[in-house]
């Protein structure tokens, strides 16, 4: 399958701070991809680069084989919902649909109208008077009705209450079920993504920590609990992601493709949330080490 997003060494710098560093990733088509990481990790930056709202400082990015926002056709193949779901507060819901119809040659007005109907939105209501959940649904409708090949959603449910959040994801999954569309959505909550994503990208401190199909990631990671042991004491085919020790006990989060034979360990499967937390912890300690190394040398 071809990649919907292909980034090579992608980086974005603001002033002296790198919001995204050395991002190399090929996101395959046909998945619902979750982009997860703490706030400030670079998720928004990556997604804005993918839709052409930002230009790279370093490296390259291709979306559906083309430069992001490189042409009107290219723009038409990607649907985007920006963070905080911007809408024109003075325009009504119906006006927004007209906006979509006028600005997108591949617009499906019937589908858009039936979706608005299904959501129970009043077409004449000004977008500024809608609730957060309704605005998010409107923005999603706008992005979907132009029949894109790729949907990019930047923290679409972050500020929604649980019911609105659930309804948004329901509509989103319905769309995925009936159209052939790849989805990339970002969130800082793993729970949101766990239900709907089958591919995961973990972004922490401006770097990609790990990426892959969720099933594979869960199959490759294990938690080992046993007597106190040094990290180096583990075999080479077990990559240690995170470790914690007490006086008598050690716990390791490892990544391995081989079976684990050592009977001294209690081996547990790792949930997605713990997996992400493990990588976030690893990135945090790596950053600490880097800072202390800098201090040593300066």
């Amino acid at each position, binding site marked *: 399958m071809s990649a919907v997003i292909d980034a090579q060494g992608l980086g974005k710098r603001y002033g002296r701070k790198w919001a995204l560093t050395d991002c190399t990733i090929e996101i395959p088509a046909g998945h619902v991809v979750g982009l997860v990481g703490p706030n400030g990790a670079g998720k928004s930056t990556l997604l804005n680069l993918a839709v052409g709202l930002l230009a790279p400082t370093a490296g390259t990015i291709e979306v559906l084989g083309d430069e992001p926002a490189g042409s009107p056709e290219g723009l038409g193949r990607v649907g985007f919902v920006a963070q905080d779901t911007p809408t024109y507060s003075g325009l009504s819901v119906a006006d927004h649909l007209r906006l979509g119809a006028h600005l997108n040659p591949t617009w499906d007005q019937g589908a858009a109208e039936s979706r608005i109907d299904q959501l129970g939105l009043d077409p004449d209501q000004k977008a500024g008077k809608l609730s957060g959940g309704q605005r998010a649904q409107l923005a999603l409708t706008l992005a979907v009705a132009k029949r894109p090949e790729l949907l990019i959603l930047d923290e679409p449910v972050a500020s929604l209450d649980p019911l609105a959040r659930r309804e948004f*994801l*329901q509509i989103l999954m319905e769309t995925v*079920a*009936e159209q052939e569309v790849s989805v990339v959505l970002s969130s800082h909550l793993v729970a949101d993504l*766990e*239900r709907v994503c089958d591919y995961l990208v973990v972004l922490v401190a401006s770097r990609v920590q790990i990426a892959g199909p969720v099933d594979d990631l869960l199959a490759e990671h294990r938690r080992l609990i046993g007597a106190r042991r040094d990290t180096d004491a583990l075999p080479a085919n077990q990559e240690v992601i995170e470790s914690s020790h007490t006086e008598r006990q050690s716990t390791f989060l490892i990544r391995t493709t081989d079976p684990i034979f050592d009977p001294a360990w209690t081996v547990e499967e790792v*949930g997605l949330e713990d997996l992400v937390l493990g990588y976030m912890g690893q990135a945090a300690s790596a950053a600490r080490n880097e800072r202390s190394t800098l201090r040593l040398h300066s």
Partner: protein
Amino acid sequence: MIEFHLDTRSGVAPYLQIVQQVRRALKLGLLREGDQLPTVKEVVGRIAINPNTVLKAYRELEHDGLVAARPGVGTFVTRTLSDPSLAAHGPLRQDLGRWLDKARRAGLDDESIEALFRDTFRSAREEGVA
């Protein structure tokens, strides 16, 4: 029409939960031969999960010979799992109740009971395989 629900904390993979719920419904007679399973779109529209999860579950059920997909129409039940042993459920349940009383009187708490049961269940199954 059967309705699915997802238990996010059960530790069971979502697609397996769907498979299990279909099997349970078949066993209890809630789903009969010829009944249609909800479409993928209907399922994900109710419980917001990845459509591939539903597809995977339906494929497994089809592999087990329980359902068949008719392109353009839907997925239909081809076989029931009505349990001839349904009759035996009653007495077995009573036996189990008595065993549980015994275990409690011996001083076992919930966790130990569960651990004991799981362990025995597992080793019994392994013995069965070997």
